[in-house]
């Protein structure tokens, strides 16, 4: 469907070594695909590298955190009339070649949010510190319980999102580990979320923003947010 307007949202913070290649890969994958890099208060040349590689760049004046950065992307998509968002990280761990797997269910109308999961096909070996793996498993369990749907990779930032979900996320998007809360939010808003297997590469450069002690802090905080979130009033998405 060539008349569909698609955009790739790439949040990046201090990813000067990787972001250029991410943008180039995206453009090589599909020259028609618009790319916007949300530079989340980087102190390095992330914005310049992204722009040089051919992306639109939105520079946040200071670090908003991943949730605020990604939501900036959704607002951009909404304001510019895109009806499909592909979200991937600026560190190069998401392979654009996998995008068709994410877009398939979206275009067949089977889901509003499609998540690329490292674990969905069972054989995903994922090397990460213990605390991180434990956190991922914990969230998978809590989120599966709350959504009454089996989800395995709730922290995955490799997603495809349709217009309905864009209108929701532009109004309300969680802060840290936004994907975890967003999964529950999506289901509460009677949108459909679907996981598809996606292979991911190891981080090429830079370091993950999450250390062991922070993992615990985030685990408690996000769990609190999830549980309280169940009792929250739903926001009203942007009108069509």
């Amino acid at each position, binding site marked *: 469907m060539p008349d569909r307007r698609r955009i790739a949202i790439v949040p990046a913070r201090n990813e000067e070594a990787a972001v250029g290649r991410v943008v180039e890969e995206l453009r090589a994958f599909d020259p028609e695909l618009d790319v916007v890099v949300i530079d989340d208060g980087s102190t390095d040349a992330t914005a310049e590298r992204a722009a040089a590689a051919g992306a639109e760049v939105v520079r946040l004046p*200071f670090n908003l955190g991943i949730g605020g950065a990604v939501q900036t992307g959704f607002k951009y998509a909404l304001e510019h009339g895109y009806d499909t968002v592909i979200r991937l990280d600026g560190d190069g761990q998401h392979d654009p070649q996998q995008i068709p797997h994410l877009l398939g269910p979206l275009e067949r109308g089977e889901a509003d949010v499609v998540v690329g999961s490292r674990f969905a096909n069972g054989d995903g070996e994922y090397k990460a510190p213990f605390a991180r793996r434990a956190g991922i498993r914990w969230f998978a369990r809590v989120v599966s319980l709350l959504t009454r749907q089996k989800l395995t990779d709730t922290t995955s930032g490799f997603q495809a999102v349709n217009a309905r979900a864009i209108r929701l996320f532009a109004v309300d998007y969680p802060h840290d580990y936004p994907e975890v809360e967003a999964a529950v939010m999506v289901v509460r808003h009677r949108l459909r979320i679907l996981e598809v297997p996606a292979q991911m590469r190891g981080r090429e450069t830079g370091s993950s923003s999450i250390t062991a002690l922070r993992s615990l802090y985030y685990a*408690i905080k996000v769990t609190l947010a999830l549980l309280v979130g169940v009792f929250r009033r739903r926001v009203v998405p942007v009108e069509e």
Partner: protein
Amino acid sequence: MTPIYVSIAASAASILLILVVLELIRSRRLRERYALLWLATGIVLLVLSAWRGGLNTIAGWVGVTGYPPAVLFAVATLFILAVLLHYSTVISKLADQNVVLAQRLALLEQRLDSGRTDSGAMPSALARDRVEDEDGGQRKRHGEGEVVFLDSRDRDRPDRVPGVQPAPGGGEEAAGQAETRPSTRRLDE
């Protein structure tokens, strides 16, 4: 030993604190990040209030022999200090970010204004202020009252000058001036 009514009252107060914090999160008036310390306060106080033997033991440790509930006060005070200190750091960060935002906004506004002036449209109040800068800050300006800028600091802060409203209507006024004084527009470029 702690009087039973003190334990009950303190437990009730702790539960109330926890419930209020949860309700504030639910209604989106409090972010989880800032609620965690309050929740920890509530939970620790609840445990110490309800677990009377524990409070006694801790009171023994710290040498409070006469009246164990004094430990409750001490713990509550410590937590409140921690919350306050945390908020001080949060406010400091917000203040810093506010500066960055204001600067960014001003720079963006300037860029938009100079773009509009180039294309022949009207400069806004911001552009006008810069025009007056070229005149050395002595020009009379007609607004809600006649204002003479004697001091360049006052000119930069029209809200400090009595009788001048900073924001509304300023743009229109600037537009009128720009049309009658086309030469000043060029100065701006």
